[in-house]
C-alpha cells in the first residue's frame, strides 16, 4: 500500500501518510469535497470512437458478470498540468456516485481505470474489497498490456486488453482465496496489540464459563 502523493509505503491503518501527511482532505482541497455523479464509463476526454463504446462496455460487463461483487469504472479526462493521476483516481473512487451501478455494490467493490490522454498517463485504483487480493504489480501488469495500443491512440483496444488481463488475475486470486482465505486475511488484519496479547494470556488462566458454573454448583 502506497501513498498517492509520495508513493511511499504506508501501514495498514494509517489515518494519514506517515511520510508526507497526505489524506483524502488534501485531495478534496484540490478536486472538490462534494460527491460526483458519473457513469461507470465516462469519456470526458472524448477518446473513444463511435464503435468503441459497445466493445468497452461489453468487456466491463463481462467482469461484472463473472465477479458479481465487483464493478469496473473507466474515466478518461484531461487532468491538466497540476493534477496527479494517482491522487485523482484515489479521490474519484472515494467521492463518486456511479449512476449505473446497483446500490448494493458500494465503491469498495470498484476498480477504477483513469486515462489522461493529454499527459499520456493511466492509473488504476481499487476499493477495499480487493485490498487483500490485488497488488500494485498486478495493476501494472494489466496496464502494461495496453501500452502498445495507447501509444498508437487505440484507447478502446487498450482498455479491452487491460480488462481481459484483469479478468484472468481476478480469477486466479479468487481461486487462491477459496483455497486459502487465511493467507489473504492476514494481509488486512491488524497486528495484535500488546494489550490484546496480555488479555488473551490472562484469559487462558481464567476458567471458562462452563467451568465456573460447575464450581458454583459444587459449592
Amino acid at each position, binding site marked *: 500500500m502506497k501513498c498517492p502523493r509520495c508513493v511511499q509505503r504506508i501501514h495498514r491503518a494509517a489515518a*494519514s501518510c506517515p511520510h508526507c501527511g497526505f489524506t483524502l482532505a488534501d485531495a478534496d482541497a484540490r478536486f472538490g469535497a462534494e460527491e460526483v455523479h458519473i457513469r461507470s464509463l465516462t469519456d470526458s476526454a472524448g477518446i473513444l470512437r463511435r464503435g468503441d463504446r459497445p466493445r468497452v462496455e461489453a468487456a466491463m460487463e463481462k467482469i461484472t458478470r463473472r465477479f458479481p461483487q465487483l464493478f469496473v469504472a473507466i474515466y478518461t479526462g484531461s487532468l491538466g498540468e497540476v493534477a496527479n493521476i494517482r491522487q485523482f483516481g484515489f479521490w474519484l473512487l472515494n467521492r463518486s456516485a456511479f449512476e449505473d451501478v446497483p446500490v448494493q455494490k458500494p465503491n*469498495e467493490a470498484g476498480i477504477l481505470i483513469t486515462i489522461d490522454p493529454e499527459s*499520456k498517463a493511466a492509473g488504476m485504483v481499487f476499493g477495499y474489497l480487493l485490498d487483500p487480493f490485488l497488488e500494485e504489480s498486478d495493476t501494472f501488469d494489466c496496464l502494461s498490456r495496453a501500452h502498445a495500443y495507447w501509444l498508437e491512440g487505440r484507447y478502446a483496444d487498450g482498455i479491452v486488453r487491460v480488462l481481459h488481463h484483469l479478468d484472468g488475475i481476478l480469477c486466479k486470486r479468487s481461486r487462491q482465496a477459496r483455497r486459502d482465505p487465511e493467507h489473504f486475511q492476514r494481509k488486512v488484519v491488524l497486528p495484535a496489540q500488546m494489550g490484546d496479547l496480555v488479555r488473551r494470556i490472562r484469559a487462558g488462566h481464567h476458567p471458562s464459563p462452563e467451568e465456573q458454573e460447575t464450581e458454583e454448583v459444587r459449592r
Partner: protein
Amino acid sequence: MKFLPATLAAVFLTATATALEEPALPTWHGKERAELEAKGWIPGALLLSHDPIPDEPAKPEPLQVEQPKPGEIAGDLKPSPEIAEKFLPAYFAERPKNFLVDPQGLLNPSDYRDRLSFLNYHASDSSIDLFVYVIGGDQEIPSAVREEEMIERFFTEGRPAAIVYYYLGAPQRSVVYLSPSITTSVSAAEQRRALESSVMQAFEKTKPSEQFEKFLVQMSIRIYWMERMLAGETAAASTPSIIATAGAGHAKSAKLIWLQALALKALIPATILFGAFLTALGFHHWLRLRARYRFPEFEVEPRLGGAHAAGVGAVISFASAALPPASQRDQVPDYLRRA
C-alpha cells in the same frame, strides 16, 4: 485495306506451294563419273546400287531347337481321372468339420497343418469363413456332384462362408462360391476379381504348396474387403497396395490382416473416446465461462481518510514509443515531479 487479309493469304499459300516442291536430284556429269571410276571408287555407289555387298557373310542357318513336348505346353493339362468314389462322401456328404478338406491327402501333413491353422485364424478374425476343398490338379469333380446345390444345402445356415475348390498345382482351375446369405451382397464381378487376384498371387510361386499358401493369403485379404462391402463400406481404393504387400509372405500378410482388423475394431472406440474427450473439454470450457467468482469479504481499516478505497495501484505513462512500459512506470512522488 479490306483486301489486305486476302493478299496476305495469297502470298502465304504461294510461298507454301513453292516450298513443297522437291528440288531436282543431282545428276552425274559424264566426265566426272569417268574420272572417279578410273580411280576405282564412287562415293555412295554402294548404297545406291542393288548389287550384293562384297565380302558380306552368308546368312546363318536357323538353329535346330527341339520342339516342346505336349506336357510342357502351358494349359495343356488334361483332367483325366475323376475323384475316386471312395473320397466323395468325405468331400461332399456333409458340411465339412474343418476349413480345409483334403481326404485324398494331397497336401503333406506339415502343409496341411499350416494351411489349416491359417484358415482357423482367418475364421477367428473374419465374419466370413473360408472353406477350401483340395483337389488334384488333373482331377475332375464327378458330374454327379452339383456344387451349387451342395453349397446351398450345407452353407445356407450358419456363418457366411466362401467355398473354394482349389486344384493343387493348377490354381487357374480354382472355383469360388459364396454361401447364399452373402451372394446378393457381393457381386459376381467382385467374386471373379477375388479369384483372379488370388490366382495371380499363386502364380508368383512355382511349387504347388507355396502356390496354395499364396492363394489362401490373397483370398483371405479379398474376403476382408468383401466383409467391408457387407458392412456397407465401400471397397477402398487402397486394395492394390494390399495385394502388393501380400507378396511379402504369409507371416507378414497375416500380421497385416491382424493389424487392419485391430485398427478397424479400435476405430469406433477411439472415435467415441475422442468425441467424449472433446465434449468434456467443451463442457469444461463452458463451465469456466459460466463460472462465477466470489471473494471473501474481510474487514479492512480505512486509510488516509478514504471511506471506500485507498488501494492505489500502478500508474503508467505512454508518452514514448522508444521506452518499454516498465521504464515508464510512474513511481515519482508528486512533489518531486512538480519541482
